[in-house]
């Protein structure tokens, strides 16, 4: 096993040419693809302008008023509460998958069980907090 020396570290362009060239190519082709497609369709595609054509939904209902409306702050609250429980599930899932492999008679198994209980406890706290704050009241 060798330790990379300073001269070998990826600081020089010569090295970048070797190892990072595929990434550079990928980046370039991505840019080219995006810009190229828009440009080509601009030149090749049919283009008709007009009041109806420029509307947001050409064949839809005519828009009424501005899109810049105030939202009820409750939507943000719901989004945040959703995040709490979403993250909860994300962390519970791998634990549930490996649950069978944990030997509950050992210290490690007990610690893992305790940990997940502590985690669920924090979520319950979040739930009670949200409940008291009236997040779930839809009047």
């Amino acid at each position, binding site marked *: *096993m060798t330790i*990379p020396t300073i001269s*070998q*570290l990826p600081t020089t362009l010569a090295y970048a040419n070797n190892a990072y060239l595929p990434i550079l190519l990928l980046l370039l082709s991505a840019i080219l693809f995006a810009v190229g497609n828009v440009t080509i369709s601009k030149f090749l595609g049919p283009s008709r302008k007009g009041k109806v054509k420029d509307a947001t939904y050409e064949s839809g209902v005519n828009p009424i008023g501005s899109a810049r409306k105030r939202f009820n702050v409750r939507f943000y609250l719901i989004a945040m509460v959703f995040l709490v429980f979403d993250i909860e599930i994300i962390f519970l899932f791998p634990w549930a998958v490996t649950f069978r492999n944990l030997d509950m008679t050992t210290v490690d198994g007990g610690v893992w069980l305790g940990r997940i209980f502590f985690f669920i406890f924090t979520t319950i706290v979040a739930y009670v907090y949200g409940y008291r704050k009236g997040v779930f009241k839809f009047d």
Partner: protein
Amino acid sequence: MTEKLATLWPEIILFTCACVVMLLGLSERLGVRRLCAPVSAAGLLIAGLFAFYKTPVDPAAMLPNLPVFGKVLAAGIGLLILGLLTGIPDRDYEARVAQGRTRFDPKRTIRSEFYAFFLFSITGLMLCAGATNLIWLFLALELTSLPTYVMVALSTQRDKSLEAAVKYFFLGAMAAAVFLFGFVLLYGATGSVELAQIGATLRHQASVEGGINPIALAGLVLGILGLCFKIAAVPMHFYTPDVYQGAASPVAGMLAFVPKAAGFFALMLLLTAPGWGWMQPGGPGGGHGSLPTPIGEILAIIAVASMTLGNVLAIMQTSVKRLLAYSSIAHSGYMLVALLAGPGRPGTLLPENGYSAILFYLLSYGLTSTAAFAVLALLERKGPDGQVHEADDFADIRGLRKKHPALAWVLALSALGLMGFPPLLGFFAKLPLFASGLAGGHLVLVVILGLNSAVAAFYYLRIVSAALLESPDASGHAEGMVQTPFRGRALAGYVGVLAMVAMVVLPLLSAGSFLHVTPASWASFGGTYKDAAPLAIAPRLPSPAKPMGAAPTGEGPMSEDAPARP
């Protein structure tokens, strides 16, 4: 894994306590809501005791005793700051509820969040002290800082604190991005997030190459710059005066200690990884140990700039809170001198050990600055518009002795303590900064530190003279000052000053040398450095020198993790 968990009891206790407090503050009954502060205090006390008696020493850590001292310090000063914070949340709202003008609605209160966020922040500080790897360190730093942004915003009803909070948040997010990028580069250069492993790899690379790897260097520099935000040192200091002034005095008092301590713990851990292995006998520290050249120079520049700028700008202030903010910048500069000096050889104790000097200084600074902010938090006056103004200007504290003699003395003593006036704790805390700087061979820095301390005397003595010697001026602000009815704040001020005095008097009574008795000896113990145990080097960089397409030889570092392709 389980061993690491055993070191975390103080944090778990504090976190659970924060969860409980979060729910208590939402109760219908006033008596239960009022429990928030006492329960927080109990949590801090228990966590502190646990940290003191039950923190196992991590044998792999290079600063094995930092977690113990750091956690006890966080809990101790945290208790004082908690006293300082009492009375901020829901003051007007609870008054209206008590008068029956409104029904209590959990939606409209901030009490539970305020105390819970404070406890989260202290939890982050404790985690910071016990960090052993970069990801842990980053998360701990963010846990320390994120609640403080919200606390600044919640601290008063004025627009000014919202402005301060937004300023603080955006600059804080930028600083976090900077040091996170630094951590990423460090990982890229060494292939590990474990601090001990990073140190071992860097030392190994240095022994092969005779210098520090440039990517790791860039990572360290970015890490230091980002952490300068937390400690309020020069290139990242711009937010300090505005945020301190915009926030309520108690929250400003918290900002002066908690992020600063977290930043210094992080800096100590971060610099220990590459730093003190460079202990060539013929090196600049004369075998005392020194940092790799560019990092040492950058830190020296930051230290000098912070000291000088903080002190010079503090002289020009008319607001005591802004003055204390600039003085907080200067104090970070002082501590950076000791950071440069480093922990010395393994086993070095207080006068020569720079890390111990920082820890002791943090203790002294925490006590004195909390006491100073407590006096500001205890004074308020009704303006002509009916608004309540807290003490801020020099006009507010001029002639304080006439109406509030005890507070005037607390303010004067804490100003003298911050200045480092000889018989006070600040002096004994500043002494090791000088001694460790000299031991580390940083004579110029020590001279600048001395000059700056002399400059600082000017504005600290201005506070002392305004509070004790002068008469109230024509503005009538000082006469209008009344004491806020919060016993916690008064307690924080008096206990801070009493502890400051007791820590000097008791050692003198016990006739021991000051540096060999508690709590200086605890700080001394906290900063001790242990030589890193030899670790296996396992870099995960792709084998660099080979041209693309060359057949892997099986010799490359990757061969350990992935089988070589045919």
